[in-house]
């Protein structure tokens, strides 16, 4: 594997290998000296066209723990004001001798374009492109869930588990990557959203979909429920009328928490809008894996970098 652009790039074997490696990386993160010499001499560039301090720091710490040199490049420009072109920026990085580029970009497909344009020779890791994919998030979610349901999980997938993804499916790169990877690992996926945010192209890939969170909670035996962040700009574009209505119909609250099974884990890719898609009691409940998700980010990103960068040519 040279690039990680999409959850579709991962076979079941690849994915499980990365999850298993992440177990060992988590061991490294638990010890006093949290450093491996594995990527000594390699240069990893964090190329962020979109602000995301947590994701950038997670990749930065991961690269540093593997002894890579890290360059953070916050590129100017946005979908509104075109700034630096991706091509020029990429060629600058190439001149610096980047072995890998971790890219976050507001345009869907930007990571793909970077990997296949010939502008850079190194590996490309997609750290979120527009409303397309965020594969490292899906891997860390799978890692977190696998660990939660089965502590001794090396070699295992997520076979037979049932996971609901709830919220702005249409615009969520996390939902796309998770849908694909969860299916690859053998889980059943149920999508829940208002009809304005649930496109057919994705419902076709899911095991079921519903416009009612209550119906899903009552009819499906869920092992986990993933709540997606709702952006207020969606409300302004009339995808739903108000935050209050959204929270009432599609938010995870105390009442719905009580009706979920005792063994249903609660997940959220962060950052949360407490009180909108998830209330504080659900987010902080005993069954919440939200802090584990944050904690596992570095281990999974170390595992990804190991698989992409450590080996020589096949």
């Amino acid at each position, binding site marked *: 594997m040279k690039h990680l652009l999409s959850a579709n790039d991962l076979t079941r074997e690849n994915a499980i290998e990365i999850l298993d490696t992440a177990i060992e990386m988590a061991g490294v993160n638990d010890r006093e000296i949290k450093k491996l010499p594995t990527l000594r001499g390699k240069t990893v560039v964090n190329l962020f066209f979109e602000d995301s301090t947590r994701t950038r720091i997670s990749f930065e710490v991961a690269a540093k723990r593997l002894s890579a040199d890290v360059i953070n490049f916050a590129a100017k420009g946005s979908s509104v004001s075109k700034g630096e072109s991706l091509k020029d920026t990429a060629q600058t990085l190439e001149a610096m001798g980047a072995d890998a580029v971790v890219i976050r970009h507001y345009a*869907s497909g930007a990571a793909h374009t970077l990997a296949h344009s010939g502008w850079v020779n190194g590996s490309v890791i997609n750290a979120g492109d*527009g409303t397309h994919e965020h594969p490292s998030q899906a891997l860390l979610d799978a890692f977190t869930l696998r660990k939660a349901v089965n502590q001794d999980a090396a070699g295992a997938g997520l076979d037979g588990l049932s996971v609901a993804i709830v919220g702005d499916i249409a615009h969520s790169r996390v939902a796309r990557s998770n849908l694909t990877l969860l299916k690859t690992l053998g889980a059943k996926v149920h999508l829940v959203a208002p009809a304005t945010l649930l496109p057919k192209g994705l419902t076709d890939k899911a095991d079921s979909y519903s416009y009612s969170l209550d119906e899903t909670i009552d009819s499906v035996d869920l092992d986990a429920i993933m709540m997606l962040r709702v952006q207020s700009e969606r409300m302004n574009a009339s995808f739903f009328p108000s935050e209050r209505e959204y929270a009432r119909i599609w938010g995870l609250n105390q009442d719905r928490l009580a009706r979920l099974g005792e063994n249903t884990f609660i997940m959220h890719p962060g950052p949360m809008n407490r009180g909108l898609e998830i209330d504080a009691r659900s987010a902080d409940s005993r069954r919440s894996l939200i802090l584990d998700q944050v904690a596992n980010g570095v281990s999974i990103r170390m595992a990804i970098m190991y698989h992409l960068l450590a080996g020589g040519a096949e």
Partner: protein
Amino acid sequence: MSKFTLVGATLADGTVANISVADSRITAIGNQVEGEAIEANGLVALPGFVDFHTHLREPGFEQSETVLTGSRAAALGGYTAVHAMANTHPVADTAGVVEQVKALGDEAGYVQVQPIGAVTVGLEGKQLAELGAMAQSKAKVTVFSDDGKCVSDPLLMRRALAYVKSFGGVIAQHAQEPRLTENSQMHEGKVSTELGLAGWPAVAEESIIARDVLLAEAVGSRIHICHLSTAGSVEIVRWAKARGIQVTAEVTPHHLLLTDESARGYDPVFKVNPPLRTAADVLALREALIDGTIDIVATDHAPHPAEAKDCEWSAAAFGMLGLETAASIAQEVLIDSGLSDWQRFTEVMSTNPAKISGLEGQGESLAVGSVANIALIDPQSSRKITDGGASKSDNQPYRGLTLPGTVIHTIYRGEFTVRDSKLAK
């Protein structure tokens, strides 16, 4: 003036004859050989093609194309006339600009360049441009279009449809409901959802077409619909024609061949407006072209400089080249498919577009006394597309594909503009 005879050419109806040309007109069709004898055995001789929808980019965007380079590409594609779209800079919304474009076309001399005038000032959709002044100018504009943008205001559209009746003009509508396509990147469907690219719903096109055919009916005016791209649009036009509404419609070569699956590699060369649709839409467009619902094939040749395409998808410009490949795709759809014939090919590539704009001396059947605008193609050969050809730009969506048929000669007003597939001057 040259005098020559094309020997042994096959006409659209299948007959084989010699065609003699002198003083810019066809002088004889039969067994005669007059002047220089030019072997045309195995070649199909058709009236020179007329493109109804060409972006020549001059004035204003000469880094993409000029009237000269676009004219050359057109000649190589078998065209003897092109209609130059109005979205230049300055916009072709005054008599001065359209006359300038026509003069540049005459100077280049490869094809007849017929300017299209903007419907509204600056293509802004707010105020009618001086349509009458453009019609009465030396450019004799008959077709008006804000192409690239939709005349979305229904009142303005109604007025424009009515106003152009005063001088026999026609509005060519770019059907795209702007609110339904804000930030849209590609056809809305399974592929756009997977790729995370903002969708461009079919209904954004269909709703405007439905509105405008009804407006045309109410006003008693002609209307032309640019680049139909969906099966639903075909249904509406079919319905409108059956009802007796004076509507004509065009389809681009790329909408007859390519689908939204092309976007999967995020290569912006496939980013185009209207977007590439599904295989079912392609099928419906092909059927409509054959059964007469769609009247013409128009290229929407839209050159862009490398930097407009060498970037991430959402930052890239819309549009693709088309002049040098259109005849090949029309051949594939009409002839090689076994579903139609060269007479229909002639209608959609030459006769009908000339008729819609009332272009004199173009789209005439090959007959004694007609202006000698002739395209000769070798339908048996095929060619691999490797570059952007004579265009100044390189946004070639068919790169790597092998397309059937080759334009061998193009004769414009009795003179070779292309001979043996090469520019003759």
